[in-house]
């Protein structure tokens, strides 16, 4: 922005500023997107080519073999299904229980509301990793939920950020709408189902997107709780492949990158298709409360 220092007073930033801003934005986008491009290119190379020319597609060196190779080693479909069950369970729990909590935190007056909201904010700054050891003892040892999908889902069941986003959306609904329904004799559950939920439908997609990132990408917890390979989400089985072949392999990078593409693709696709439900206002309200 220093290029615009010299612009005369009381004038909009000149052309120099606009050009500089464009350059910054495009350079940023390149830095963020290049590794993804390189991930795809690398996953299609027959022999890994890390020279500068290797960054461009070379017809003679393209193959889908790497996808077959990684699939035969870690079972991509099993991994995807496990990731799907893990993520789906968390989204279901968050949407059902999180919406109920968000509704009560905004619309209903009850003792303990302030404390519950403060807890929802506080929970977001507790490093989850600190809880890893006690949660492992409780869930794997005491409850015997090691190597189960339930054990995987439990610590993530209700996303607190989602609770706060639901609350924020419900707060924007005029109180009169709820009161009118109550005067007509609707029960609280009916008010929620017939009045509140239809009004916050846009929030639902935002919440699903935000909740999706957590379990789909989570590594540490499912890694601790699943030793059985047939139950591991894709992030865990791919990580195990990376850490076990990193030392030995002759050419593992193509297979690793193919696995990485399969793991990344659903999240990236989802966020491109629904990008307008993942905007700064949603995130701002979600984190700040």
């Amino acid at each position, binding site marked *: *922005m220093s290029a615009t*220092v010299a612009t005369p007073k009381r004038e909009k930033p000149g052309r120099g*500023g606009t050009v500089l*801003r464009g350059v*910054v*934005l495009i350079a*940023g*986008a390149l830095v963020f997107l290049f*590794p993804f491009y*390189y*991930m795809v290119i*690398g996953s299609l190379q027959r022999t890994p080519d*890390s*020279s500068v020319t*290797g960054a461009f597609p070379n017809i003679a060196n393209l193959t889908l073999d790497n996808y077959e190779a990684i699939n035969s080693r870690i079972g991509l479909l099993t991994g995807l299904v496990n990731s799907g069950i893990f993520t789906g369970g968390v989204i279901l729990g968050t949407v059902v229980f999180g919406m*109920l909590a968000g509704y*009560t935190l905004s619309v*209903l*007056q*009850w*003792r303990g*509301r*302030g404390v*519950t*909201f*403060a807890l*929802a904010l506080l929970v977001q*700054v*507790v490093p989850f*990793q*600190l*809880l*890893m*050891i006690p949660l*492992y003892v409780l869930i794997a040892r005491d409850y015997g939920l090691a190597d189960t999908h339930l054990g995987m889902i439990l610590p993530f*069941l*209700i996303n607190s950020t989602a609770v706060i986003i639901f609350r924020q959306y419900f707060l924007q609904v005029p109180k009169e709408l709820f009161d009118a329904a109550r005067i007509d004799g609707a029960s609280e559950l009916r008010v929620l189902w017939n009045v509140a939920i239809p009004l916050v439908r846009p929030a639902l997609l935002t919440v699903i997107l935000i909740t999706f*990132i957590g379990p789909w*990408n989570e590594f540490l917890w499912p890694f*601790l709780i699943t030793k059985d390979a047939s139950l591991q989400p894709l*992030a865990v089985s*791919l*990580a195990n492949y990376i*850490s076990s072949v*990193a030392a030995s392999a002759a050419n593992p*990078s193509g297979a*690793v990158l193919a*696995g990485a593409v399969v*793991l990344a693709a659903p999240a*990236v696709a989802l*966020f*491109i298709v629904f*990008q*307008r439900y993942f*905007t*700064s*206002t949603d995130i*701002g309200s979600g*984190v700040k*409360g």
Partner: protein
Amino acid sequence: MTATTPAAPPGAVPRKADRRGTASPGGGRRKRKLLGENPLGLLFSAPYLVFIILVFAYPLVFAVWMSFQDYFFAAPGAVVDRPFAGLDNYARVLQDPAVWRAFGNVGIFLIINVPLTVILSLLLASALNRAVHARAFFRVAYYVPYVTASVAIVGVWLFLFSGNGLVNNVLGPLAPDPSWLINSQLAMPSIALFVTWKQLGFYILLYLAALQNVPKELYESASTDGAGPVRSFFSVTIPSVRPATVLVLLLSTVTGANLFTEPYLLTGGGGPNGASTSPVLLMYQRGIEQGNPDVAAAIGVILVVLVMIIAFIQRKLAGGDES
């Protein structure tokens, strides 16, 4: 971070209760006084409250308790004696050079990651905020790394930053030897850069939200007073987004303290020679791999206390009280 909300005043209740009429007005009123105007709120929130108690509150207390016990894994259901150990675990942790190393590593990480995150995300967010064309494209491009699994991105970074990887090929004679991730001087800074890059999109969105709330009049009056774009960036933008900055500082510090996946995979378990071990990786190694959960819990408690101290200092320095 508004910690206080208009909580239900427990006393000021019966107004609506009378209108709606209850079977036993006297008893209902007393119950309402105890539970608030709408006790159903408690019922609807119960699953969430139980979840918080089960998954956050109880394990938190359990972790602290465990750090003062001689705790070890036992077969499920077995009743074993786990004597109170006082500060033994803490003494053991503090005498362990690997622990000091790990905390030092996270210090290096934070010194690189936190300022870089704040500066770059504010810079890109303000450029994006005033961009006219292709805003959605840039926004998506910036947060794509944030929504992608670390494990997937680690795969491509290993390929990019390996000894004969693309980065070293581009750098040519300037390439570090030994290469980035196996160089004890560069392993931790490489991880810090990786995490900065990966998380930046999220913080850009946070700043973007803050920037959109800055009143346009402030810029207009600054420009009337003769301030150029650079001057108004420093005297209007930066003070106006201070609450967001406090939040970015806090969240990036917590993310740094939580570091696990990157040292585990990117540098092959905190290598070379512990140069990139993080406290959480150490907790995993000591607690789960070596079967000393009590020691791991003590490391965790120290970690959280340190994070709280750093967050408090940041809040003081950045003037978070105004938010």
